[in-house]
C-alpha cells in the first residue's frame, strides 16, 4: 500500500492541507517479506553508537536512530519497546562491530522520538527509572485510526458492528497492517475515531465491539 500523500491531497482541491501525514514509506524502507531486517548503512559505522556533541551532527544522528528504531519495530511488529531489554537486542547492539548504544543514550534517542511525536513514554513521571518503556509510534494512534477508517470505507463495513478481536485477529484483516496490533494501541486508535464521531465503542472488557459510521 503506497500513499502519495501530498499529491493526492493537493489534487483534492483544497488550498490548505492539514498536516496529518501518512508515512507508510516515511522511512523509505518498505516492509520486506524477507526474514532479515536490513539495517541502514550507519548501523555499521562505529561513531553511530556514540552520542555526538555537535548539534548538527547530533541532530542527524538522532534522526537516523529514530528512523532505525521505527523501521525495526515495524519489521518486528513491536509496539512497545522496553529499553532495558532492547539494549542487548540487535537494535542497539551491533555484535559484528562490537558496538552498543548505552541505555542512557538509547533513552536520549527515544526522547528525541517523543519530541518528534514518534514515541511516548509509558508510565508517568520523568525520572530515568520511569523512562524504560515506550510506545514506538512507527504509526501513531491517529494514523492507525486513519488506516482502520480507510479499510472500513473500502470494505463497506460502515454501520456494521465488529468485535475488537475480529478487527485485529480474524482473517478478514490479515492483509492489513493493523492486523495483530497491540490491543492498547487499538484502543487509543479507536478512541480518536470516537472523538471524531466516526465510531462508537461498546461492551466491556474482552467483549468489546465497535461500530463505524
Amino acid at each position, binding site marked *: 500500500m503506497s500513499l502519495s500523500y501530498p499529491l493526492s491531497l493537493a489534487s483534492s482541491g483544497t*488550498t490548505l492541507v492539514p*498536516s496529518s501525514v501518512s508515512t507508510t514509506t516515511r522511512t523509505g524502507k518498505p516492509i520486506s517479506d524477507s526474514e532479515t531486517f536490513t539495517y541502514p*548503512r550507519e548501523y555499521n*559505522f*562505529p561513531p553511530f553508537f556514540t552520542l*555526538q*556533541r*555537535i548539534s*548538527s551532527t547530533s541532530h542527524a544522528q538522532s534522526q537516523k536512530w529514530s528512523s532505525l528504531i521505527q523501521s525495526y519495530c515495524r519489521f518486528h511488529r513491536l509496539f512497545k519497546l522496553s529499553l532495558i531489554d532492547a539494549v542487548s537486542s540487535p537494535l542497539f547492539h551491533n555484535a559484528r562491530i562490537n558496538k552498543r548504544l548505552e541505555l542512557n543514550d538509547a533513552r536520549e534517542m527515544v526522547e528525541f522520538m517523543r519530541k518528534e511525536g514518534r514515541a511516548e513514554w509509558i508510565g508517568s513521571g520523568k525520572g530515568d527509572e520511569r523512562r524504560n518503556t515506550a510506545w514506538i509510534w512507527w504509526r501513531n494512534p491517529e494514523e492507525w485510526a486513519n488506516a482502520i477508517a480507510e479499510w472500513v470505507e473500502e470494505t463497506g463495513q460502515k454501520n456494521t458492528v465488529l468485535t475488537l478481536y475480529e478487527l485485529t485477529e480474524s482473517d478478514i484483516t490479515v492483509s492489513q497492517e493493523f492486523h495483530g496490533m497491540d490491543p492498547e494501541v487499538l484502543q487509543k486508535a479507536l478512541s480518536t475515531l470516537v472523538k471524531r464521531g466516526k465510531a462508537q465503542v461498546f461492551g466491556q472488557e474482552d467483549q468489546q465491539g465497535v461500530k463505524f459510521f
Partner: protein
Amino acid sequence: MFSMWDQTSLRTCPQSRNIKCYKSSPTIIPSAFADTNTTTRECGKAVFQCPRCTFENHPSLLSCELCGAPLLSQHIPPGLDNPTVRTESPGPVLNNLPAPGVEENESIKLSFRGGGEKIFLERLKGSMTQRKWLLQGAPPVPKPNRQSASEGGMPLPGSSTPIGERVKTVGIAGLEQRRLELRKNNELVIGNAFEDLEALMASAKEIVALAESFASNGANGTSESNAVANALGLVTTKDMLGSGSNSESLYISELSRNLAEFLTDDARGVLHKAGGIISLVDLWAIFNRARGGVELVSPSDFEKAARLWEKLKLPVRLRQFRSGVLVVQGSDRTDEKTIKTLLVWLSDLHSFPPEEELAWDWQTFGRGVTAQDAAERFGWSIGVAEEELEMAEEKGALCREESIEGLKFWENWIVDGHDSNVAVKSVKSVKSVKSVKSVKSVKSVKSVKSVKSVKSVKSVKSVKSVKSVKSVKSVKSVKSVKSVKSVKSVKSSCTSVRWSRKKPFTQ
C-alpha cells in the same frame, strides 16, 4: 637703559664664602655731599641710576635701594653718568670666612645688564651639580674652625648686611652646633656615595649600548659577534629600551618582531618542526631556552607580544581554540585548510588495508583516528591535535566515537552529504538538476525546469514555477508554490504545504 636683576642665595654648599659684591669707584661721592635730593638726569627721567649697581632708584633716595651705595649728587661731572667709561668691576671680595655648617644668611647679589642672566643661572646650576671644586684637588671637607670665624673682617662701608657676631659654642648650643656640623658632614659623604652610584649607572648604559652594537653587528653577518649577541641573548631586552610606559610598548612590539623572526627562521624551523602549529606555552619554553637563561621573557609579556602579530602584520598568528588554548601558527593557515588535510588523510585510510581485520566496512567508512595518530601524522603536539580534531568536528567534518580504546574521530558519515548545500538563499533559475542529496533551506526559487531527484529538502519558502520534477523523496515544508507543471513522484512530505495556485499534478 635696562637693568635686570637676578639674585641667588648661595647656601647649599658648605664652601660658600661670604661674598660681598663690591664695586669701588673713585668718583663716588658720599650722599652727604649731595645737597639736594631732587635729582633729575639729563634725559629727563625721574629716576636716578646707582653708579655701582645701575639700579634705577627713585630720585628722592639718598642711598641705593639695592646695594646701599650712596647716590651721586647733581653736581657730579656729566661724564660720570656714562656707564661705558666706568672702570672695570672688581671680582667679589671675600671678607669673611665663616665655618662651614654655620647657618649664615649671607647672600650675593648679581646684576645683569642687557641679558646674560639666563646663561649664568644655567652655568651656576651646572657647576652646583657637578661640584667641580671637589674634584680639582680641593682640600678635604674643612673641619669647622669656630675660632677663626669668630673674628671676621670689618664690614665694608655701604654693605647691606653686616656680619653678625659669632655665637659662642658652649653648653647646649655648642652641642647642638656640633651635631649640626656632623650632619652636614654626613650629608656630604652620602652625596659623594650617590655620585658613585650614578657613575656606575652611566657605565651600565654604556655596556648595554655595547651589547646592542654586538647585536646589530650580528645582523650584518660576522658569525663571531653574532655568537656573542646570541650568547648574551640580548636581541631584545627590557633594559636596552629603558623604562616607562612608552618604552614598555616599544619593548613588546620589538619582542613581537623578534618572536616572529624566531618562528619563521628556516635554520631553526621551530614552526616547521611542530607541524606548522605550536602551543604558546611550548613556544615560550623554546624561546626562553634559546635565550640561554638570560633576559628571560615573562609569560605576560610573551602573550602581549604574540597578540601584536596581527596588528604588526607579521606572518604568524596567535589563535585561540574554543577551549581557550592559545596556539601559534602561520598567518596563511586556516581552519578550512586544516580540515581539508585531515579529510584527505582520512580518505586515504579507505584505500590502505588495515594491519588487522576490522569488523566494519573500512572501505566505506575508513578508520577512526585518535589525537595521538593525528599528532604523529602531522607532527603536532597531542594537545594541538586534540584541538584541531575537535575544531573539525565542530565544523561538522568529523564525528566522534568513544570506546575503551579512547576517543576516535571519523569522517562524518552520520550527516548525509556533508558536502551538500546547507542553505540556499535564492535561486533565480535552474535548468536541470540531476540529483540533490539534501538541502536544508531554500528561501526562494523562481523557476526550475527539471529536477531528476531530490532526496530531502527541509524547508522551501516559495517556488514560483517548476516545470517537471521526477522524484522527490522527502520535503518537510513548503510554504508556497505558484505553479507546477508536472511532478512524477513525491514520496513524503511532512508539514504544511500551501499551494496558492496549483495545477493538478500528473503522476
